[in-house]
C-alpha cells in the first residue's frame, strides 16, 4: 500500500495539494468572528444551480459554496481530494479507489455514501456538459458505503485532472437525484452553506449548514478545497448586472463584496477608506479562434500574416481599459505547463512582414470577417482594434457584430460566413495544459479544421499531453503543441485579464479566486 501511495504522490498532482499543506490537522480558529449576514453583488444573472449542466461563472459562484466534489482543484489548480480522504491507484494505472471522508452529510441530513457518488457520476455521464471527462471510464463500483472505485478502459495520466476540472464540476448530490433532468436538480449538497431561497434574476440566499464536516487534512481554504468553515450566518448573492449600480451598492454598504469592478472605477474606489480592492492577476485569457474551413483563413500564409500584423499591447489596452498583462502562452505564469514556446510569433506588430506573407499567399483582398458581439464589450473592442491593425497591413477586415446567442450559435454551428470568433477563456486556461488545449483538438465546436480533423503534429503532442504518465514529457508536449498552435495560427491569445473585486473594509479573510468562496470570511464588528 505504501508503495502505491508513494507512486501516487510522485505521479499525480494530488501531491501538490498534500505537500503544500501537510497532513497536520488545522487547529487554528478560522473565523475571526461568527455570525452576520453578507451580501455579494454579482455581475451576471444566475439562472440555475444545476452545476452539472451549466458552465456559467454565476452558477459556480453560488453552487460551489453549496456543493462539493470527490476531487477538486486547489488554489494553484492542482487536483486535490475533497469528499474523499484517500485515493489509491492500482499499479496498472487503471483502477482508482476513493475512500470517502467519514461523517459527511447532505443538507437534508442523510449521510454521504458511495451510492451518492455513483449516482452523481451517472447523472453527469448522462447529461453533464463536460462528460467527455469520463470518456476513459469503463465502469465504477461501490464495494461498500465508504468506497468508490473507478475502472478505466486504459490508463490515462490526466484522468484526475479531468474529473477534478472545475469549469463544469461533477458535484456530488444524493443518489435519488441521479435521474433528475437538466436544470431539475434539487440543490442539496454537502457544502458549508445550504440553500434558503433562489429567485432567478434577483438573488440566492444561503445559510450556514450546521451539520457541515470540513476536510481537515488541508489547513484553510485552497481553490474549492481545504478546510472550509461558514463564519457567516447567511450570504445573499444579489444580481447587480449594471456596473454603476453594483459599485454604488458597495459604496452605500448595501453589499459587502462586489464582483468585477470596472477598471475606470478602480481609482475612485481606491480612495474610499471604507472599501478594499482585491485583484486576481490572471483571471482570463482574451483570445480568438480562426475558422480554418473558410477562405481566406483556410490559407496558412494569410493566417500567419494576420498574426504578424497584430500589436497585442494596443488590443489589450483598449479591451481592458489598461488592466492587462501580455501573455505569450495558453497558460499563465506560475502554472505547471506555462511555456513561452512559439512566443516569438506573439505580439509581432509587423505590418511589413504581414504584407510580404500576404503576397506569398496570393491574397487578393478577400474579406476577412471578424465575428463578435457588443454584449461582451471586451470581445467587441478586441475585434475592432484587431480589424484596424489588419487593415493597416492591407487586409480587408470586416466586423460582423451580432448579439451573443447568434454569434455563439453561428460559431458553433456554421463553418461559413465568418473567419474569426472572439471569446475569453475564464477557467479553461487555469485548468491545466490538456484542458486548455482541448478546445483546439478534434472534435471541437468553434475550432473549425477541415473535416473536423485538427493538425496532425498538434494532435500528436496533444495525445502525449493527455496520456503520458511522465509530467516532464507532458510539459514538453504542451510546449511543442503550443508552438505548433502559434505556427499554424490555430488560435490567437491576446493577453491576460485580471479580475478586480472590492469588499467593504470590515470584510476579513476574503481571497479572490476564479469564483467566489464565502467560507472562511467574516465581518469585523
Amino acid at each position, binding site marked *: 500500500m505504501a508503495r502505491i501511495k508513494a507512486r501516487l504522490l510522485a505521479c499525480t498532482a494530488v501531491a501538490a495539494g498534500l505537500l503544500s499543506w501537510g497532513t497536520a490537522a488545522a487547529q487554528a480558529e478560522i473565523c475571526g468572528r461568527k455570525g452576520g449576514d453578507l451580501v455579494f453583488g454579482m455581475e451576471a444573472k444566475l439562472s440555475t444551480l444545476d452545476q452539472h449542466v451549466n458552465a456559467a461563472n454565476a452558477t459556480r459562484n453560488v453552487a460551489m459554496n453549496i456543493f462539493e466534489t470527490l476531487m477538486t482543484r486547489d488554489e494553484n489548480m492542482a487536483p486535490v481530494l475533497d469528499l474523499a480522504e484517500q485515493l489509491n491507484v492500482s499499479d496498472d494505472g487503471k483502477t482508482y479507489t476513493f475512500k470517502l471522508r467519514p461523517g459527511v452529510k447532505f443538507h437534508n441530513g442523510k449521510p454521504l455514501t458511495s451510492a451518492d457518488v455513483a449516482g452523481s457520476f451517472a447523472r453527469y455521464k448522462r447529461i453533464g456538459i463536460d462528460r467527455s471527462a469520463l470518456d476513459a471510464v469503463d465502469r465504477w463500483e461501490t464495494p461498500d458505503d465508504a468506497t468508490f472505485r473507478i475502472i478505466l478502459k486504459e490508463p490515462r495520466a490526466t484522468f484526475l485532472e479531468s474529473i477534478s476540472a472545475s469549469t463544469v464540476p461533477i458535484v456530488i448530490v444524493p443518489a435519488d437525484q441521479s435521474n433528475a433532468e437538466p*436544470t431539475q436538480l434539487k440543490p442539496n449538497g454537502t457544502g458549508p452553506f445550504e440553500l434558503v431561497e433562489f429567485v432567478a434574476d434577483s438573488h440566492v440566499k444561503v445559510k450556514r449548514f450546521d451539520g457541515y464536516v470540513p476536510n481537515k487534512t488541508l489547513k484553510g481554504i485552497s481553490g474549492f478545497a481545504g478546510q472550509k468553515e461558514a463564519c457567516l450566518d447567511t450570504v445573499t448573492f444579489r444580481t447587480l448586472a449594471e456596473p454603476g449600480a453594483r459599485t454604488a451598492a458597495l459604496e452605500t454598504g448595501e453589499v459587502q463584496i462586489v464582483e468585477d469592478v470596472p477598471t475606470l472605477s478602480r481609482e475612485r474606489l481606491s480612495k474610499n477608506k471604507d472599501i478594499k480592492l482585491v485583484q486576481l492577476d490572471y483571471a482570463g485569457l482574451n483570445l480568438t479562434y480562426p475558422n480554418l474551413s473558410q477562405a481566406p483563413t483556410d490559407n496558412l500564409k494569410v493566417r500567419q500574416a494576420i498574426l504578424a500584423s497584430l500589436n497585442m499591447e494596443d488590443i489589450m489596452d483598449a479591451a481592458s481599459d489598461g488592466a492587462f498583462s501580455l501573455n505569450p502562452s495558453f497558460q499563465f505564469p506560475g502554472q505547471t505547463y506555462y511555456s513561452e514556446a512559439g512566443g516569438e510569433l506573439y505580439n509581432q506588430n509587423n505590418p511589413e512582414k504581414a504584407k510580404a506573407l500576404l503576397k506569398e499567399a496570393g491574397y487578393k483582398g478577400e474579406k476577412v470577417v471578424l465575428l463578435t458581439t457588443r454584449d461582451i464589450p471586451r470581445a467587441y473592442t478586441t475585434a475592432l482594434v484587431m480589424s484596424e491593425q489588419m487593415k493597416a497591413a492591407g487586409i480587408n477586415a470586416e466586423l460582423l457584430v451580432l448579439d451573443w446567442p447568434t454569434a455563439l450559435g453561428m460559431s458553433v454551428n456554421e463553418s461559413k460566413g465568418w473567419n474569426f470568433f472572439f471569446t475569453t477563456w475564464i477557467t479553461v486556461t487555469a485548468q491545466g495544459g490538456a484542458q486548455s488545449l482541448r478546445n483546439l483538438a478534434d472534435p471541437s465546436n468553434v475550432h473549425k479544421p477541415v473535416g473536423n480533423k485538427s493538425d496532425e503534429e498538434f494532435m500528436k503532442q496533444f495525445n502525449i499531453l493527455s496520456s503520458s504518465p511522465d509530467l516532464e514529457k507532458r510539459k514538453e508536449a504542451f510546449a511543442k503543441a503550443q508552438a505548433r498552435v502559434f505556427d499554424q495560427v490555430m488560435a490567437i491569445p491576446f493577453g491576460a485579464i485580471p479580475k478586480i473585486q472590492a469588499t467593504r473594509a470590515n470584510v476579513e479573510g476574503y481571497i479572490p479566486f476564479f469564483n467566489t468562496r464565502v467560507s472562511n470570511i467574516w465581518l469585523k464588528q
Partner: protein
Amino acid sequence: MLAYALRRIAQAVPILFLVSLISFGIMQLVPGDPAAMLAGPNATPAELAQLRQNLGLDRSFLVQLGIFYSNLLHGDLGHSLILGQPVLETVIERSPISISLAIYSLVLTILFGISIGMVAAMRHNRILDQIAMVIALLGVSVPNFWLGLVMIVLFSVQLGWLPTGGYIPFTEDPLGWLRSATMPAIAMALMQIGLLARLTRSTMLEILGQDYIRTARAKGLRETTIIVRHAMANVLMPIVTVIGMILSVLLSGSVIVETIFAVPGIGALLGNAILARDYPMIQGGLLFVASALLLLNIAVDLIYAWLDPRVRLQ
C-alpha cells in the same frame, strides 16, 4: 354592455392563437442556439448534440409545435430551458412585481402628467406653460437608464435615502416596497409623464376654445367649475385611451430599468429569456403578456363605452 364585453372577449381568442403561432414561428427562425448558450463554446459537438436531444430541440418544427399546443390545452406552458421551472408558474410569480411597479408608475404618470398638462393649458403661453413644457420635453427625451443611474448616485450614494436596487414585495413590507419601487417607478414613468402632459395640454386647449366653454364663461361660472364640470369629462376621453396604452407599456416591464435596479420583473424575465434563446419561456411569457394586454384593452374599451354610450352602439 354585457354583450359588448362578451363580444370583445370572443374576439381575443383568435388573436391569442395568432400571437402564440407567430411567437413560436419567429423563435424557430431567429438564429442562436439555446444548447450552445447552456454549454458554452467549450463543449464538444457530441455533447452539444446530446444536450439538444435532452432539451427536445432536435425535433422537427411541427412536432415541437404539436407538443406546445397539446401542453397549452392542458394549461401547461412548458418548462424553461434555462431556469428549469414551469413557465406559467414563473410568469405568475413575476407578474405581481411588474404589476405593482406599473401601477405605481401609472399613479405618478396620471398625477404629474395630467397636472402638468392642465397647468400648462390654463396658463397658456405664460411662464408656467413654458416651464411645464420644458419638463415634459425633458421627460420624453431623457433616457431612462441614464436617469436611473443619476438617481442612484443622488438618492442612494449621496443622500442615502433609497436603496440602489432590489425589490421588496408590498405584502412583506409596504414601506420597504415603497423605498425599493420608487426609483424604478420614476424611471419608468418619466417618459409617460411627458407624453401625457403634452396630450393633456393640447386636448385641454382645444376644449377650452369650444363654444360651450365660452358660453359657460359668459354665464359667469367660476373657472374651476368650468374646468371640473364642463371640460374634464371631454378631456378624459382621449386620456383614458392613452392611459390604457401607457399601462400596456408599463406592464410589459422595462428590461433596462429592471436590470439597473435589479428588479426581477416580467421585463427582465423576457429580456433574459430572449438573450438565452429560452424558447418555452419566450413563447409562454409572450402569450401571458399578450393575454394581459388584451384584457387591459377590453377593460379600457369598456370604460370608454361607459363614458360614451355611442361606442356600444358601434
